[in-house]
């Protein structure tokens, strides 16, 4: 019973140690991670239209809070616009990804080139 009691006493303190000193995040994550997970586990469960709405809301909320969207967010949103055949919006999102994160340039240029193909 001794070790069990030890765990019971240490448990809450471990929680404090693990969660207590949470630092502010660099990015506003919104639904991005959930969407990535769901896109594989349950593709089609949420329509592209609904996803766009959700992600655009996340973006507005982040802007209001003056926070950045995470790496990949705009590229992902762009890929959903592409799925919907909204080429102009797709291009805008890809350009936004490149502007926010220049590391994505080669990747984004490749995606942009595929947009230009008929």
């Amino acid at each position, binding site marked *: 019973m001794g070790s069990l009691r030890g765990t019971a006493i240490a448990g809450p303190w471990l929680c404090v140690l693990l969660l207590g000193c949470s630092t502010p995040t660099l990015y506003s994550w919104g639904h991005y*991670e959930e969407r990535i997970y769901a896109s594989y586990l349950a593709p089609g469960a949420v329509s592209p239209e609904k996803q766009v709405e959700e992600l655009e809301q996340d973006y507005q909320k982040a802007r209001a809070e003056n926070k950045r969207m995470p790496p990949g967010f705009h590229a992902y949103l762009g890929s959903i616009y592409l799925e919907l055949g909204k080429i102009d919006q797709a291009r805008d999102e890809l350009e936004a990804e490149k502007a926010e994160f220049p590391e994505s340039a080669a990747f984004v240029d490749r995606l942009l080139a595929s947009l230009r193909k008929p």
Partner: protein
Amino acid sequence: MNARALVSATACALALLTPAGCAKPYDYTNFREHRPRSILVLPPVNESRESDAAWSYQSTVTRPLAERGYYVFPVAVVDRLMKDNGVPPGKVAEILGADAVLYVTLEEYGTKHQVLNAATIVKLRARLVDTRSGLLLWERRFAVQHNSNVGSGGNFGDSTEAAHDLSGRANVRLFGDTDQGLLYGPYHPRYGKE
């Protein structure tokens, strides 16, 4: 033992299997000489018995890596690009201009149900490789276990779901532990100050 203590103990019984306390600091010589700005995470190799482990893990890796200060290529978009264009995994980092590639092997991923408790385990090996030189920048073997007491309303849920929840927290530690995790990336305010 009162009920509250039991619940707290259950909720927080995160047992670390790797001996982090007595481990030597990682040798960051290669890392410091080839500091990556961007990381491509390739789909993990799945050695666990959970068929959905690879994608479950893959969708929990972006956030902790990005919050560590790196540009992380969007896993879902890259995955589609590779499939649509038949790009082999060995070529994708070069084509996308990724500075480094993260290779992950999932050794265990899921929940083992025992008589009185259920143990959810995420156990993996990770390697970060510099794209241009092929040098190993960092590697780590890591495991996190979460025990829940069945008697006190522990986790009866889906095995992958439980591992998925644990996986995000496992990655925060995998990349963030002092002397064992990754050095900070360029978007982190502490970049270059370690």
